[in-house]
């Protein structure tokens, strides 16, 4: 591919539409993981919660509910698994790593089980009518996006505002840094952390729903395919800031869209190398930011009332 080809690619609105489309589930997922981690709870359940969200949202719509009801169902499924994670890691102070991986296994297998029970004998996955593109909007790249992408873009400033401009946001950031101080202010640490994990997990559920209700029109096995883990990396890359999370998700999506295009054009190079590139870049990005990463001080530290 020559320089002129690249210029042509970047001048093409379709390319940038693809970038936004790829970024959308990552934006939702990263915001969700960010909320959990800002409150001091690592949520490795994200990969499975996205599967559950993708399935619950799709099933609701398939059974006749509206698309937005489907999104709500996905959020609810995510919130339910988030509540379980919060019970185990916040109330019972169990290992966040182990509980998160357990939730991923549980949510994934429960969704696959439910899918097979509901559709025992289908070979091709049943489809729904997904969200339509908002073509009435006269801006080239945004016109080819669905309402869910818009929702993701709007969610970023809302969550940033909540975190930095409201008492709730202050308490939430503080509980991830110094839970004892929050306790001293008369705020219930367990409740606050539980709320953050439930809300963050609901966003992860919506991230999954984007896949079945907007990007595709059916539920496939392995459709989440590591996107949740990418979100966990993006949170670190973003330094736990919503604006940077958006930037990180777009950057990742840019490289992903780019490798997809290059894959189609360049001959001779194994396609797997292109597919590897986004993962390798993520690791490289983590190494670069690691030195100045300022983790929430109480992240992964279980908190028990009265214990130091």
């Amino acid at each position, binding site marked *: 591919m020559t320089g002129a080809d690249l210029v042509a690619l970047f001048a093409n609105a379709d390319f940038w539409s693809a970038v936004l489309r790829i970024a959308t589930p990552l934006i939702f997922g990263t915001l969700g993981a960010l909320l959990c981690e800002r409150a001091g709870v690592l949520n490795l359940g994200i990969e499975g919660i996205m599967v559950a969200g993708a399935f619950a949202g799709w099933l609701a719509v398939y059974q006749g509910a509206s698309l937005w009801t489907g999104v709500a169902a996905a959020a609810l499924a995510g919130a339910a698994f988030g509540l379980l994670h919060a019970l185990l890691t916040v109330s019972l102070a169990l290992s966040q790593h*182990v*509980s998160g*991986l*357990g939730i991923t296994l549980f949510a994934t297998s*429960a969704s696959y*089980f439910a899918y097979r029970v509901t559709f025992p004998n289908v070979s091709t996955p049943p489809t729904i009518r997904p969200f339509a593109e908002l073509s009435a909007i006269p801006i080239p790249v945004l016109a080819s996006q669905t309402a869910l992408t818009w929702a993701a873009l709007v969610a970023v400033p809302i969550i940033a505002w909540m975190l930095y401009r409201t008492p709730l946001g202050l308490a939430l950031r503080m509980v991830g840094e110094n839970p004892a101080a929050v306790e001293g202010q008369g705020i219930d640490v367990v409740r606050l952390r539980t709320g953050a994990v439930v809300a963050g997990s609901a966003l992860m559920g919506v991230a999954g729903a984007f896949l079945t209700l907007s990007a595709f029109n059916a539920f496939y096995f392995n459709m989440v395919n590591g996107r949740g883990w990418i979100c966990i990396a993006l949170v670190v890359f973003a330094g736990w800031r919503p604006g940077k999370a958006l930037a990180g998700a777009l950057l990742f999506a840019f490289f992903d869209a780019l490798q997809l295009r290059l894959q189609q054009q360049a001959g001779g190079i194994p396609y*797997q190398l292109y597919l590897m590139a986004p*993962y390798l870049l993520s*690791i490289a990005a983590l190494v670069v930011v690691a030195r100045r990463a300022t983790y929430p001080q109480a992240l992964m530290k279980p908190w028990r009332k009265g214990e130091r």
Partner: protein
Amino acid sequence: MRLEARAHRSRVAIVVAPFAAIAFTLGVTMLLVAWAGAPIGQTYALMFDGGFGSRFAWSETLTRATPLMLTGLSAAVAFRARLWNIGAEGQLYAGALAAVAVGGLHGGSGFGVPAAVLFPAMLGAAVLAGAVLLLIPTLLRTRFGVDEVVTTLLLNFIVLLFVSMMLDGPMKDPTALGWPQSVALRDDLQLDRLIARTRVHTGLVYAAVLAAVLAFVMRATTFGFEVRAVGANARAAAFVGIPVARTMAVVALISGGLAGLAGAIEVAGRTGYVTLDMSPGYGYSGIVIAMLAGLNPLGVLVAAIFVAGVLVGADSMSRGVAVPTYIADVIVAVSLVSMLVATLFARYRLRR
């Protein structure tokens, strides 16, 4: 409401806890079976029969348990040092690939090198591949502070793509009719059957011996003490002069090596060659097994047989009644969570 450590550790509670967890797991999964519309008693009977009910069932369970024991040991030793190795899946594939790269040299002939030389070289290559694959993220953590959970997870995807590339390219079996699989190992490089007319192979012996060695090392050697100290409190360990970074690196070599060996043993004991679906998530299951076993190496053997029995039993059950095999993963996940909670309540109690 808060948790309070029990002043007296009740022996009864510690013994009862695992049974309570199993009962809870059966209760939850019973609801799912009922939802699928299958007769509950028959479903569980079929599952038990398929996993443990006959000589054949046991042989299949033990065959399935072999790689799980090794990945379980891999997770147990790493988690003991609080090295969160979530990359055993990738390390397993790297080991399998390395084993075939060495053992299957020159189109599978291995240049006619005698098995007495080639076989140890093959296992060594697999151990090395897995070990190096975990050493990199571990050094990134101890040198640069990069979280190893994310890097080991991402490496799984990278390794799988690399394996796919190798199976499409230089390591492809030309006689496999376009199916992506590697060249096969020579017969004399494959593991012997442990029990005649079954698939159980001597890999089971490797796993059991390694578990015993690891149990001894962790309990009775200075190194084992250092690993436990680093895991319990890395700062305190550093303060008393334990070389934390070096201990982590050695743990990484052991943990990654065990997962790599699991790949080689699968190839030499069961499949004979590498395919992209040779592991249905053995690396991830190893984490669950290590946790079920409370990170105890000998416990890993038992937990691996339990998980393998559930997986094999569910496969066989789903041929008899209309319950999807995914029930097996649900059972494993729920048993993990309920075991964690049960052992917690054996040590703590709730106080209002």
